[in-house]
């Protein structure tokens, strides 16, 4: 620690300590960094220990990242080996569903002229289609 012996007052040597060389300042910044990391961990992230444990597993974190409808769409497509799909107008108009269906299901692609169309479970299937599979939140029709 750098110190400068400045002057003698009342027979005692007064030491000048530079701010950035001061041990208290050093520990203050260590504490500040640790506090900030705790703040980031508890208030600025959605950290879950279960995700960390399985962070490299193939299906890890899906339930926390997207809604159940999106996960179900992926399960239906994979279980039935469907390699492209379309979405009902109602589903497409919902920006969240549209974007998540497209990015989460990739490399299975959305295609305008696909035979398979997703509908919400309470939605009516159009006349030229027949129900192919149904899940809890969604159903897929073959048109």
């Amino acid at each position, binding site marked *: 620690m750098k110190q400068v012996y400045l002057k003698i007052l009342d027979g005692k040597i007064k030491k000048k300590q530079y701010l950035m060389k001061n041990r208290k300042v050093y520990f203050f*910044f260590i504490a500040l960094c640790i506090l900030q990391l705790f703040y980031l961990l508890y208030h*600025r992230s959605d950290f879950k220990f279960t995700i960390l444990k399985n*962070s490299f597993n*193939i299906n890890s974190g*899906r339930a926390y990242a997207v809604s159940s409808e999106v996960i179900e769409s992926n399960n239906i497509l994979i279980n039935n080996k469907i390699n492209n799909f379309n979405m009902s107008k109602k589903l497409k108009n919902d920006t969240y569903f549209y974007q998540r269906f497209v*990015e989460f299901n990739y490399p299975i692609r959305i295609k305008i002229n696909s035979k398979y169309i997703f509908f919400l479970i309470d939605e009516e299937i159009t006349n030229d289609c027949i129900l192919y599979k149904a899940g809890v939140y969604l159903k897929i029709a073959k048109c």
Partner: protein
Amino acid sequence: MLKHHFHEKIALILSSFILINYFLLNFNAPLILIKINFLAFILFVCVFYFKNVFDNPFLKIFFLVLILICLGSPTFEWDPRSIWLFHAKRIFYEGNIFIVSDNYANFAHNAYPKIAPAFASSLATLVGHWNEIFPKLAFLLMFLPPLILSYSIFKNTEYLFFLAIIFFTIGKFLFSGWMDGLVAVYFGFSALLTYILTVEKKEFHKENKILFYIAFCFFTTLTLIKNEGVVLLLIIFVTTFLLNLIYGQLTKKLYILFFLSFSLLPIIAWKLFCFYNDIGYIEYYNLDIFSKLIPRLYYLKNYELVSYFLLLNEKFLISLTFFLFSAWFSWNKKLFTFTILLSVMYLLILALIFLSTPYDLYWQLNSAAARVIRSVSFLLFFLGLYNLKNKINY
């Protein structure tokens, strides 16, 4: 090795691997090369960690904590999922960055630069599959080159102060999958390196050529992270040009700027590719810009709104106060002019961009201003601390 620019060398090597990865994916390289490149990156991260274990302990420990937070948190926010990780997923499945030429899923802004998604896709290639959690770890790893380089600038308490600045200004953008933190950090370091190479020292580049190479890598990376990076780099060039003109050093320093400007070539090549393939054409032909900008210029309320979101941001105000205190405590006219010019130019450009948005002005400012102002906040903090560091005893 420690005594001979160890941290600069590691920063340069890691930064080079990030760029090499991008170029490998440009040229449709075999998967084995991409894996080897990523393994080499990890190897040099290990060299940084284990060659003299007790050197720079705080970055090593805190970065490990950040890795754990990153691997334990899901990605559900809009831009990270719809843009950055979706690009990465596409590159992972298709093996090259030019897959976007099919313009699939236009909402993903296919014309955006691809260096970070390319790096994330290579991590997935190394692991062997895609999932919702680990690919964004690659974005966090991209912070390592500047963070390691900073140890050659700051030591001990100053380094802890620097880390506190990083946690405060970048915050969750370190691990949440957004690009704005990367842009801010690479911008801050690019500005400082330009200042050191072309303004501060007369023949610095001859003494320490490694900083020149690092600057070149950081510039290229900055432009390839996000479109803002190109604007920020151009602002750095203009500011440096003006400052050298004012101080009569332009003829001596012009050739450094000339060679550094080659760092713009990869982003120019990418944008030309996008332009000729009509990728993200809306970004190029947004005819709404002037029709939105000009009417907004006549209303004082719009200026109030822009000022409120940009200038009254708490991080910006604290960083500005710190920078002004630093300038008062240790006056350095060149550094002060350089920093203020950079900040003012970027703030003016931001104001113009926000005023010309095709979306509702309030909505646009509310959703983006706090993110983009981080670059200026980090710059003010970072150069303020650098200025203090130059005052030897404080």
